[in-house]
């Protein structure tokens, strides 16, 4: 069981991937979370001045599934088709650290007590980091919704925030899961089909090309960044080296011992810095890219919906022509055509707005994260520099 309450970290955490126009009328955060086995219980805290809520401040317990449910209902709501729907938070994944913890337990006999303690401490830190990240992505999801002029008024969203019992949303059963999968398949097939439809608006044409390209690139970059941050095992090695040096020193009683001990100490300190550097890189860079991979997918989904509407409109035009030709059901076809056009126009209009703001948001988020990452990199590098300088001095002097 792990529980965290992040107050000091909140600023840092929220800074992740999105810049939100902070509107005091509806402020949501997740101050606390509880991890039980594979379930994570988030405490969603809301402060509001909106009259649609009964109380100005309240907290409710929510699980990851509840967030998914909220996301799905919003996606399914027809009237939101013209918006970029904030991407759902990824499922909490504690497998990595948990597995390591398991391995550590198995290897307990093969290492010294100190090594074990250090490893355990390290794993706990890793676990905590994953945990924090999980909380953070969930929080961001809610904050995105709350900052959106339409979503914040969503009924389901308000229920999600306010209903003080367990939502106990039914988990998706196998059929639905498969249905979801099937829907995705159809969607991608459909995307290919309607890609033949001639674009009428240059902005969307451009945007489509850009997003398609960008999504491939950012997916790739994310994967590479993940790989890069994952290969930051240097800290682990430093740890091992430090341990091994200490062991060597323990059995030694010549002048050698001093050097070894000093050296072990340096490595131990370097490890800490390296550790932080790696986790900051992960948080600021990889997480950013990851988030925008999802967000761009959401933007692409919007384009798809619009393209679908466009295709529908063209079809309805054809149908109308046919009906006129046959002189049958003309009124109905006209009606249909009109609706389709309306829907398409609406989607285009809101989509344009959404995409423009999305672009601005992305740029701001990248800026913020890159600056923060750079500053942290500098900070850590400076730390190691002063650390190393000090150690070298000491080594040289004795």
């Amino acid at each position, binding site marked *: 069981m792990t529980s965290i309450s992040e107050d000091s970290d909140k600023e840092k955490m929220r800074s992740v991937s999105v810049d939100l126009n902070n509107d005091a009328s509806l402020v949501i955060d997740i101050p606390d979370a509880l991890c039980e086995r594979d379930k994570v219980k988030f405490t969603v805290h809301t402060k509001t001045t909106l009259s649609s809520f009964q109380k100005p401040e309240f907290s409710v317990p929510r699980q990851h599934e509840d967030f998914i449910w909220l996301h799905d209902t919003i996606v399914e709501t027809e009237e939101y088709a013209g918006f970029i729907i904030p991407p759902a938070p990824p499922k909490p994944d504690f497998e990595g650290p948990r597995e390591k913890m398991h391995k550590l337990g198995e290897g307990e006999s093969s290492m010294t007590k100190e090594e074990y303690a250090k490893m355990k401490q390290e794993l706990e830190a890793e676990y905590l980091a994953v945990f924090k990240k999980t909380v953070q992505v969930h929080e961001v999801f809610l904050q995105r919704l709350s900052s959106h002029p339409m979503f914040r008024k969503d009924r389901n969203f308000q229920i999600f925030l306010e209903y003080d019992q367990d939502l106990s949303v039914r988990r998706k059963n196998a059929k639905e899961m498969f249905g979801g999968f099937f829907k995705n398949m159809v969607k991608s097939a459909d995307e290919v089909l309607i890609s033949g439809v001639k674009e009428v608006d240059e902005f969307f044409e451009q945007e489509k090309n850009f997003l398609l390209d960008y999504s491939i690139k950012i997916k790739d970059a994310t994967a590479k960044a993940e790989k890069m941050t994952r290969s930051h095992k240097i800290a682990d090695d430093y740890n091992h080296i430090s341990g091994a040096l200490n062991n060597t020193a323990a059995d030694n009683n010549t*002048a050698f011992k001093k050097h070894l001990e000093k050296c072990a100490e340096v490595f131990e300190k370097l490890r800490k810095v390296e550790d932080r550097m790696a986790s900051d890189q992960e948080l600021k860079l990889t997480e950013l890219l990851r988030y925008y991979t999802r967000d761009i997918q959401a933007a692409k989904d919007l384009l798809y919906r619009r393209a679908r509407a466009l295709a529908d409109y063209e079809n309805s035009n054809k149908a109308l022509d046919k009906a006129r030709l046959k002189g049958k059901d003309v009124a109905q076809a006209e009606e249909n055509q009109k609706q389709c056009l309306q829907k398409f126009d609406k989607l285009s209009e809101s989509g344009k707005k959404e995409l423009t703001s999305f672009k601005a948001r992305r*740029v701001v988020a990248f800026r913020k994260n890159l*600056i923060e990452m750079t500053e942290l*990199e500098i900070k850590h590098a400076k730390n190691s520099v002063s650390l190393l300088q000090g150690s070298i001095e000491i080594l040289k002097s004795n």
Partner: protein
Amino acid sequence: MAASSERSPPPFPDLEEPELLEDRDEGADACHRRSTGTSISEMDSPSPDTSRPPKDIFNEPPEDIFSDPLSNINSEPQKKVDAKISSPSSDEAVDLFSEPLDDDSEVMSSPEVQNPMPDLLSEPKSGVLGEPPVQKNAARQQDVFEEPPKGSSKSSSVKKAASAEMLGDDDEEEDLFKEPPKVVTRKPQPSGPPVDVFTEVKSDVKVKPQVKDDPTDLFSEEALTAPAPKPSANSSSSSRTNGVHSEEQDLFSEATVELSLDSPRNDRKKDAVKPSVSAPAAPEASSSSKAPSKTLEELEEEESEDKFDLNISVTNPEKVGDGMNAYMAYKVSTQTSLTMFRSKTFTVRRRFSDFLGLFEKLSEKHSQNGYIIPPPPEKSILGMTKVKVGKEDPSSAEFVERRRAALERYLQRVVCHPSLLQDPDVREFLEKEELPRAVSTQALSGAGFLKMLNKATDAVSKMTIKMNEQDVWFDEKIQDVENEEQHLRKLHVMVESLVNHRKELSGNTAVFAKSVAMLGSSEDNTALSRALSQLAEVEDRIEQLHQEQASNDFFTFSELLADYIRLLGAVRGCFDQRMKAWQRWQDAENMLQKKRETEAKLLWANKPDKLQQAKDEIAEWEAKVTQYERDFERISATVRKEVIRFDKEKARDFKRQIIKYLESVLHSQQQMIKYWEAFLPEAKAIA
């Protein structure tokens, strides 16, 4: 060759020191080489004219002493004095020269018999037990040892007087004459086959009182020459010489036996270097417990003096030849102000097998003395094959660089060893244009096979030898070394994995950099696009940094550990040599026991005809036992000294390397700061 003869002055110290050394070696090889002509022709000296004078002097003395002491001794001193007067600067050379001798043959007791001959002879052969020459030598030495006592017991007062006159230094003389009796008490009279030379000398001593003066003459000569090194040591390059001096003292103070056998010359030397130590040295010898602390002190002292002005670098690896016969040649450049070398800078080309050959030669000569011979890097058939095939891939370039660096470190370690530096093979390796091709290093050659076989039998015998360690110091040290090797192995694995991970990180960073560059090119916001491509550049540079750091991890840290794992192996080898010596001694002891039993039986059976033979055998084995015991004590002392030296060297080396390593890490972090700081405005410029 008689040390006394070597004392005779060569005209140009810097030039002929090498020769002197070479000469000694030759002397060892070729016993008494009488014909000057042949030896000159055999010497590879680039300047025969300078080589002549020392040669002459060298070849004469053995004759003098061994064959005809009477006639020559009278003339010899004169010669020497003359020579001395003619070129005082040569003393330095003399001194330098006498040291290695001492190191090699500490057993040598008194200076007049300081002929390395018997010792040097017996050493190579000592593996072959019971061979006549060895016995002879042992006997010979003992005879010689007994000589002074006889003289002194007869008329020590006369001698003292005489020597006091000559030397003007009473102390030393007393040392001289006090010590030998100890030897006598400890040692049974060798009735073994005395060499004619000795009988001659003996009889001389007995018959003619005049001859008594001869040893003193010799002594006095010693006395005259010995103080001479002092100024020379102070004057020029010989801080090193000083180091060696004190080492000698260590040797003698450590080993009880040696001290009791201690040559007056050495005592005098001690006086020359450190007057304070000399007096208590002899009494202290009996209490070995004091020795270690003293050694430490002295080594401490030595450290400061132990500065070699000798820079060796191995550069320009170059492939010679084609196909499977291709090999890598390296440029070995030496820069030195040591006078033992012909010039200040010189360069030779050597191939890998030459380096191995040097090691072979050194270990053949020195390992049974208990020296730690730095091991060269291992042969790597795989790595070399790659190089031979000629693929210009980074792994083979890395292999070559790795080997080059390892060879450089290897050579530096060799010349850092004060005794190995004196070895003619080392100097030859560094100086001589062409080396005879080292053949025994071929990986799968017959010699290699034999070596493997030898190693196997060694391993077996090591297992069978059960030595009950008497010496706590050794007991602990052996354990320590084994533990340390274990730890270093573990540490090495860790550092290797650090290297690999860093390389992996570097690779992944490179891939990410590319990916970010692509992302940047797709980005439609100009500022962000620019920033992303800048980020890609930064990541690219960081990739370079990681790569550099990885190679630093490897070269300064991982290779250091690998070196020391190898070196600790060599240290263990020394311990094994010591154990072997012990075993030999024990075996001889057992044999002696048996012989005595046989004698008792014969006595009981009353068989006088065989009794004499048995007695002879007992005497022979007694001599052997003493010899082996002394060997063992000597090797123990050397190993101990070597290990202490090694530990010091190691601590220093580690410190230096670790600082170097940390500095490399520091450097890469500083670069990192630079890169990120350059990027920061770019990130801020995103709008």
